[in-house]
């Protein structure tokens, strides 16, 4: 994985000292909240429902064991012993004290981490396929490009005062595990007929109050022109954005208002102009970065069979283990969705267990998935049993990946100032209702995603079953949506009808799921059945 050079480290260290000084002035009353707020947000520090919240960037979801141990140390020393992994592959601490925030940033800088651009009108943490570098189906590891774009867009003045936030995702496989088309700027690495590497480009996606799925603006941008193309997109947006209305400033709104054809025309015009300026990065710089992502030294001649004689282990393998590109290796998914737990939460002790496993068994690498789970990307199949035993002891061996209890949920009204309703208790009640693993496996892949407000941090638009919490005259109410997806056949979920109270939404989900079970055809997932029969096939079952 990427290692800071002296310039990276100097920039991050200087930023910590800047923030230490800004915080001191705020605490001494030399700066008002209005003056300080944009500065703390540029360092990922929010003021949430119960305390300050610090969002730590995990670039493209990649961590090493030293970094995860540091995150555990921070959780234990400065927070309340846990952290929360988010749907942008980041980590949030929910109980931070302002007076300690500069010390936390200094601790993060010791392990090449920071909170820069995890908030504000900037290019946010760039996300990627969490199987990057390991997936059997990828063309190449997408992370060198994610890192190159991260470096080119961090602190760049032109991108520091964007109309709103801007989210980028990079994948390199046909299967989309990163919800790429739900981003402002989605990139899929492809090979053309001549064998050259380039990008399919998908601008204009996003969730929130006005969801849009990104469209394809180019079949092939040569790889070393991608920064020029990104600049062109940002300039067209910057030039035309509705800066007068916060709800209309995201790029997806501009794309919608201009139309895909006109937006593409303007981008192409700008792109051709930028190409004449020669602002793309030198090949040598890309190669310097790419060298950090050289595949680990995989052993050869390893056994490809897994000893499945322990039936509990076999259940875990069936659900949590994915194919790896190297023979004898596998990708091990770690569920952060225990039935009675809080999705995405992890204690400091659990972080240390996983850090040890990554160091011992996975070439010191692990990943955060946007689904709020973790991944050990490169493990020998022969080591899976030992890994499973350690995970089981740490309460991390649930076998529910992509099943009905593997629910994405935002922090909701339990933690978030923007939320209108709680998400976590709804996720917990649904998980309890479907706790029986045989029932879960019978239902198959079924992705439930819950947001506590229209900002959609819980990705409800992309849920096979989505739930949106709203405020109805001071009480929590939940809308049910069906048919969304964040995969390579991206689709937007549709609202079924009138909302439900907290108990009612759990019953409504169960009725929808039972309807699926009644009418599914062999091999159909919930989403397939929904696409076949449409909303009408479910509505009566849900509302009676």
């Amino acid at each position, binding site marked *: 994985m990427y290692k800071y050079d002296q310039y990276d480290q100097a920039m991050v260290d200087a930023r910590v000292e800047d923030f230490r000084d800004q915080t001191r002035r*705020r*605490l001494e*009353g030399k700066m008002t*909240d209005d003056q300080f707020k944009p500065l703390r947000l540029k360092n990922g520090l929010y*003021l*949430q*429902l*119960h*305390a*300050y919240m610090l969002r730590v960037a995990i670039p493209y979801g990649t961590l090493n064991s030293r970094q995860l141990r540091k995150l555990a140390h921070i959780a234990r020393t400065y927070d*309340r012993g846990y952290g929360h992994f988010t749907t942008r592959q980041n980590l949030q601490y929910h*109980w*931070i*004290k*302002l*007076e300690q925030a500069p010390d936390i940033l200094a601790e993060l800088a010791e392990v090449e981490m920071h909170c820069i651009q995890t908030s504000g009108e900037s290019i946010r943490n760039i996300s990627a396929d969490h199987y990057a570098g390991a997936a059997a189906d990828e063309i190449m590891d997408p992370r060198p490009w994610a890192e190159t774009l991260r470096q080119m867009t961090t602190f760049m003045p032109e991108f520091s005062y964007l109309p709103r936030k801007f989210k980028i995702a990079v994948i390199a496989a046909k299967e989309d595990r990163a919800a790429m088309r739900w981003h402002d700027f989605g990139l899929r690495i492809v090979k053309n007929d001549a064998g050259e590497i380039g990008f399919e480009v998908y601008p204009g996606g996003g969730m929130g109050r006005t969801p849009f799925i990104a469209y394809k603006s180019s079949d092939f941008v040569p790889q070393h022109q991608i920064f020029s193309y990104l600049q062109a997109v940002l300039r067209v947006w910057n030039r035309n954005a509705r800066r007068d209305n916060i709800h209309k400033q995201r790029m997806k709104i501009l794309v919608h208002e201009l139309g895909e054809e006109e937006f593409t025309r303007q981008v192409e015009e700008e792109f051709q102009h930028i190409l004449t300026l020669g602002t793309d990065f030198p090949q040598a710089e890309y190669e310097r970065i790419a060298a950090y992502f050289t595949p680990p030294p995989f052993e050869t001649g390893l056994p490809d069979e897994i000893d499945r004689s322990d039936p509990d282990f076999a259940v875990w393998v069936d659900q949590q283990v994915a194919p790896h590109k190297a023979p004898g290796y596998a990708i091990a998914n770690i569920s952060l969705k225990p039935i009675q737990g*809080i999705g995405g939460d992890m204690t400091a002790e659990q972080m240390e267990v996983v850090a040890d496993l990554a160091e011992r068994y996975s070439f010191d690498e692990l990943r955060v998935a946007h689904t709020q789970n973790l991944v050990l990307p490169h493990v020998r199949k022969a080591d899976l049993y030992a890994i499973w035993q350690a995970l089981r002891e740490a309460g991390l061996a649930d076998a529910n990946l992509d099943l009905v209890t593997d629910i994405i949920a935002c922090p909701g*009204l*339990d*933690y978030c*100032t923007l*939320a209108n309703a*709680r998400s*976590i*208790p709804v996720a*917990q009640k649904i998980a309890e209702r479907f706790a029986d693993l045989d029932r879960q496996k019978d239902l198959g892949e079924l992705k439930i995603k819950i947001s506590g407000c229209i900002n959609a941090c819980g990705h409800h638009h992309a849920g096979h079953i989505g739930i949106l919490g709203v405020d109805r005259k*001071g*009480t*929590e109410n939940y809308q049910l949506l069906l048919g969304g997806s964040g995969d390579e056949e991206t689709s937007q979920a549709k609202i079924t009808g009138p909302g439900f109270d907290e108990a009612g939404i759990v019953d409504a989900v169960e009725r929808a799921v039972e309807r699926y079970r009644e009418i599914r055809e062999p091999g159909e997932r919930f989403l397939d059945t929904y696409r076949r029969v449409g909303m009408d096939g479910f509505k009566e079952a849900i509302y009676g």
Partner: protein
Amino acid sequence: MKILTGNDLKTGSVVWWDGEGWSLHVEDAVDAGDRAEAIMAREEAECRVNGPYAIDGEKTAEGVRPAHIKDRIRALGPTVRPDLTLKPADPNAGNWVI
């Protein structure tokens, strides 16, 4: 009644105007009446509170309670982590929140 709430500047903790200063406990909140704006302006200028705002509250037998669910959750802590609320030892402490 109008009660005032905000966050402690240093710690971010939720606080309530008790007539003389800022308390962690909503039970201590007092009616700020028509002095709300003046109190908030003065206290924020003196850095004794961050982002104060006035909300509707009501007096009950158990003490003052905010009218809106969001402020009731702020007053006690996350409903899903009773161990992290202001009254972790009392299993019934959150009965009035939802």
